[in-house]
């Protein structure tokens, strides 16, 4: 990768990224030439034929066409766009035709986090783990509104539709941790709906698959909770510093521990372990007054230990323990 | 400018002569027809695509429409188109009374059309064959009407309809509410045009009765006529597309 590519683009991690950047540079250089013709031509003509002080207002030339030039206006762009078209379509077909041996991972978008389901049965939240140098087929769908799954380093993007599948694929050629963004507007948390793709060497990936998250087993509960707080996307809706986003701040929840929480139907409950647990598993049942019932259920996405960890973490929050 | 020489009172000041004014209005009217075609066009696109996706559902849902009412309406509308054309023909020959009569007949036909439409809608509302989430229709009346098991079986076989013994009802196809959604929007928008057309025709009747329209100046009638024929023209497509899916 030369300097300019590095400056303009994120890393090239997928097998087709290089080709796409080259397509960019082809159009780029052609455009620069066309642009310079227009701008330099314009400057030159404007200055050369400028109306100077003291000039006489006179009749000007009646020249208004030149067949040779006019033909050029058509032919040169035509040639350029033909090349662009052929190149663009070739690259594109490369991007849509999924290799047969690809590993299939199911991605579900939901306001405002991503769930990844692996063929072997595991599932992760906001963290896509893939092996390096293996084609990965991503099958996308959404549970609510449109999202769009975008991995800049892979130059890959696909809209995530409710009630429909969409497909994309990539083949990562460099291990590392990269950004995933949501690029279709999906509501308040749209700009926080990001995730990570972790590309691992084959060996590590196998180990990871085998353990599938059990590495956290020996963390103390509060620390695990703190980790889950961002890993399970609680942070897209709940802050730790008292400001309300889509959901109430945890700081507030923890400070109200043991006190009454009023719901939008006028009923109320005491904030305690059970309340928090049911808030996470069945959020639609009691909706805190002043908020909307948009919190998704985490039924099946958290095991018991993880639930306990989150509750334990929540209890540790105090005014001065801001993260 | 010198438009004060001997210009008739119906000539607007910014035109040179009556012919320019007439031709301009007509061109404007046709441009308007183009926008009408494309407005309905959007709905035709929706129709085409959903029909291509769910041919069976469209077929089955179509059976719930009343062909006879559709047919009568087609005839009524064609008749009204004829009377509208004749109204213009009459005014061109300066037969004001005849023209007025023809306009009146057109108006009556339009009213008849809407009346029949009302009966049709009424029936559908009653059954719950409504668009979108209000759709609550649980099966065609056939069940009540046909007690002959063999006939029911035949109906089921030919129409791909499933009969639930427990509830004694027939259930149709996937998403019929979309069919009814499109049906109601298209016929509703068309009905709205008929209603607007009636208003315009009433206005023409007033103008004609007052002697404002005559052989030398009947632009309004010509323009409304074009509009009215468009209404007919759209129905010509709606009728087979909704009622006669065969």
């Amino acid at each position, binding site marked *: 990768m030369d300097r300019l590519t590095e400056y*303009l683009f994120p890393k090239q991690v997928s097998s087709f990224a290089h080709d796409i950047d080259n397509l*960019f540079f082809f*159009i780029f250089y052609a*455009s620069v030439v066309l*642009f310079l013709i*227009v701008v330099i*031509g*314009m400057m030159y*003509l*404007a200055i050369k*034929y*400028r*109306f100077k002080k003291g*000039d006489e*207002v006179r*009749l*000007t*030339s*009646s*020249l208004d066409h030149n067949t040779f030039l*006019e033909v050029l206006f058509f032919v040169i*762009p035509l040639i350029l*766009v033909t090349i*662009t*078209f052929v190149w663009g379509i070739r*690259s594109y077909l490369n991007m849509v035709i999924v290799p047969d041996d690809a590993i299939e991972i199911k991605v579900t978008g939901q306001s405002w986090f991503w769930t990844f389901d692996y063929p072997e049965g595991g599932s992760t939240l906001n963290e896509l783990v893939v092996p390096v140098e293996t084609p990965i087929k991503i099958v996308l769908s959404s549970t609510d*509104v*449109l999202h*769009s799954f*975008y991995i800049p380093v892979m130059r*890959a993007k*696909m809209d995530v*539709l*409710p009630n*429909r599948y969409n497909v994309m694929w990539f083949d990562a050629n460099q291990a590392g941790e990269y*950004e995933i963004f949501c*690029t279709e*507007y999906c*509501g308040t*948390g*749209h*700009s926080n709906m*990001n995730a990570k793709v972790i590309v691992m060497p084959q060996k590590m990936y196998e180990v990871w698959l085998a353990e599938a998250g059990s590495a956290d087993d020996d963390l103390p509960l509060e620390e695990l909770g703190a980790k889950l707080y961002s890993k399970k996307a609680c942070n897209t809706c709940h802050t730790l510093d008292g400001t309300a986003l889509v959901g109430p701040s945890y700081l507030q929840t923890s400070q109200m521990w043991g006190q009454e929480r009023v719901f939008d139907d006028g009923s109320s409950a005491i904030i305690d372990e059970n309340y928090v647990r049911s808030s996470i598993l069945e959020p639609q049942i009691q909706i805190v007054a002043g908020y*909307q019932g948009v919190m998704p259920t985490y039924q099946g996405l958290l095991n018991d230990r993880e639930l306990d960890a989150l509750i334990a973490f929540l209890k540790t929050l105090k005014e001065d323990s801001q993260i | *400018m010198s438009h004060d020489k001997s210009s008739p009172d119906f000539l*607007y000041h*910014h035109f040179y002569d009556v012919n320019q004014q007439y031709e301009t*209005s007509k*061109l*404007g009217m046709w*441009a308007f027809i*183009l926008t009408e075609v*494309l407005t*309905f066009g*959007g709905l035709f696109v*929706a129709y085409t*695509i959903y029909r291509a996706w769910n041919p069976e559902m469209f077929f089955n849902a179509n059976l719930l429409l009343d062909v006879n009412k559709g047919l009568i309406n087609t005839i009524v509308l064609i008749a009204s188109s004829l009377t509208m054309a004749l109204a213009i023909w009459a005014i061109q020959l300066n037969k004001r009374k005849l023209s007025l009569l023809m306009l009146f007949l057109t108006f009556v036909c339009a009213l008849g059309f809407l009346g029949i439409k009302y009966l049709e809608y009424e029936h559908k509302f009653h059954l719950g064959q409504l668009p979108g*989430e209000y759709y609550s229709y649980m099966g065609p009346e056939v069940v009540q009407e046909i007690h002959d098991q063999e006939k029911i079986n035949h109906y089921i076989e030919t129409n791909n309809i499933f009969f639930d013994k427990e509830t004694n009802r027939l259930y149709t196809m996937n998403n019929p509410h*979309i069919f009814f959604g499109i049906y109601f*929007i298209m016929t509703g928008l068309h009905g709205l045009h008929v209603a607007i057309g009636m208003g315009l025709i009433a206005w023409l009747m007033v103008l004609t009765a007052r002697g404002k329209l005559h052989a030398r100046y009947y632009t309004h009638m010509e323009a409304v006529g074009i509009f009215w024929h468009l209404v007919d023209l759209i129905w010509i497509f709606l009728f087979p597309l909704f009622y006669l899916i065969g």
Partner: protein
Amino acid sequence: MGDTNQNYLTHPKGIMSWLLTLDHKRIGLMYLFGGLFFFFVGGLLALGMRAELAAPGNDFVSNDTYNSMYTLHGAIMIFLFIIPAIPGALGNILLPLMLGAKDVAFPRLNLFSFYLYSIGAIFFIYVLLSGGVDTGWTFYTPYSTTSNTNVMSTTMGIFIIGFSSILTGLNFIATVHKMRTPGLTWYKLPLFVWALYGTSLVQITATPVIAITMVLLMLERLLGIGIFDPAMGGDPVLFQHFFWFYSHPAVYIMILPAFGIISEIIPVHSRKKVWGYKFIAYSTLSIAFIGFLVWGHHMFTSGQSVLSQIVFSFITYFVGIPTGVKIFSWMLTMYKGQVSFTPPMLYALSFLFLFTIGGLTGIFLGAVALDIHLHDTYFVVAHFHYVMQGGTIVAFLGGLHHWWPKSFGTMYNQTIANIAAIGVFIAFNGTFFPQFLLGLRGMPRRYATYDPQFVEVHSYSTFWSGILGISIFIGVMNLLWSLRKSNKLDPGTNPWGALTMEWTHTSSPPHPHNFEEEPVLTHGPYDYDKVIVKPTFKK
């Protein structure tokens, strides 16, 4: 030129004579001020957004406020300013004058259009004051069918403004066809008229589809008819087809009048016959037509069929060719002319510069493989600001400066105008050029908060957007300031020595009925090789 005291501005008098006027020039002025007002509102929202984007977090407004701001910014700029403003303001004022007609074909309809526009605008103001709407100006389902913000009022507003736009288009088509003064044949029309004609064709063909789309969207919310909403069995991609079937051609509603303005400004201020008249005229029509075949290039990541992707990508490039012909023709018009660096000409030159960048980046986006990376990133944001703000708005400002003495009979301070023009040019590039970089690096659009890696470029862009706002403000204020009485020009003034009929056949500001005598065609609109009219600045 006859009775110099009678002009359309002062005759007849009284507020009612304005509100009920059938005079196309007055209606044009009302559009102009309505449009400028909404430009101002949209611009303030933009500056607010830029302020929020100066730093990565939620420092200035919350996510929800930001989302409302960009939606209203986009919707107001597009539906209340740029689509109605140029045809509605400059088009209305100039079209009959350029045709030698006394008015547009249907003056009453014209006033009615303006009132429809105003009613639509009221809906928008209501939305603005009642907490906003957050779907983006594209209203993609199913978000727009479930969002609990003010989607209904906004779509209703757009629906009504759509009708206003249709009626204006229809009126202009009839006017161009039937109201030309005797002897004014198609090839003697000023190119601005050709451009308006092309625009009007697009307006009447495309706009009905947005109207019906908005109706379907409202019905989707009210009844759940299930055409667009997947929860009801509908297809969200179909909504996108409907939306873009209008909104892609709509970008040509925005740009064609600008092309027309540039085709007027450059020959006049270069005092030179326009290069390739017929090519420019026909390229307008072919752009208008091809524009109807490419809408799917906004849906390259939506999951439409591969066949559509290829077809749309293919046709997209072909818009570039007639556009290129225009660009080169404008450039060559200056050849062997006498180019004066007046404010309109500065705007026209910066148009050439900026629009070429904007248009060429459109070609990047038209390449499917590349658009998959760039779609919904700031690259797209930069592209469309280059064509809309750098193209249309800059041309519009140029046109305003060009026809200001005609419309109001006053001359602004040209030095200040030149400074503002240069300011707009520099600050515009400062604001939006960096956004190409952001997009290439993967910064998604419609983000209230963003990854800290983008902060430098964002804050740079914010800085320049402030200067841009100030420059535009100075430019517009300079114009408004010129309206003082003491600035009156002699009604016979032709400050640029232009040859089109609105300059040579009537006074500035024009007579209430446009021409005191029936205009007689003596020369073509660009006959600078046959006729000399000396620029005059009489007070």
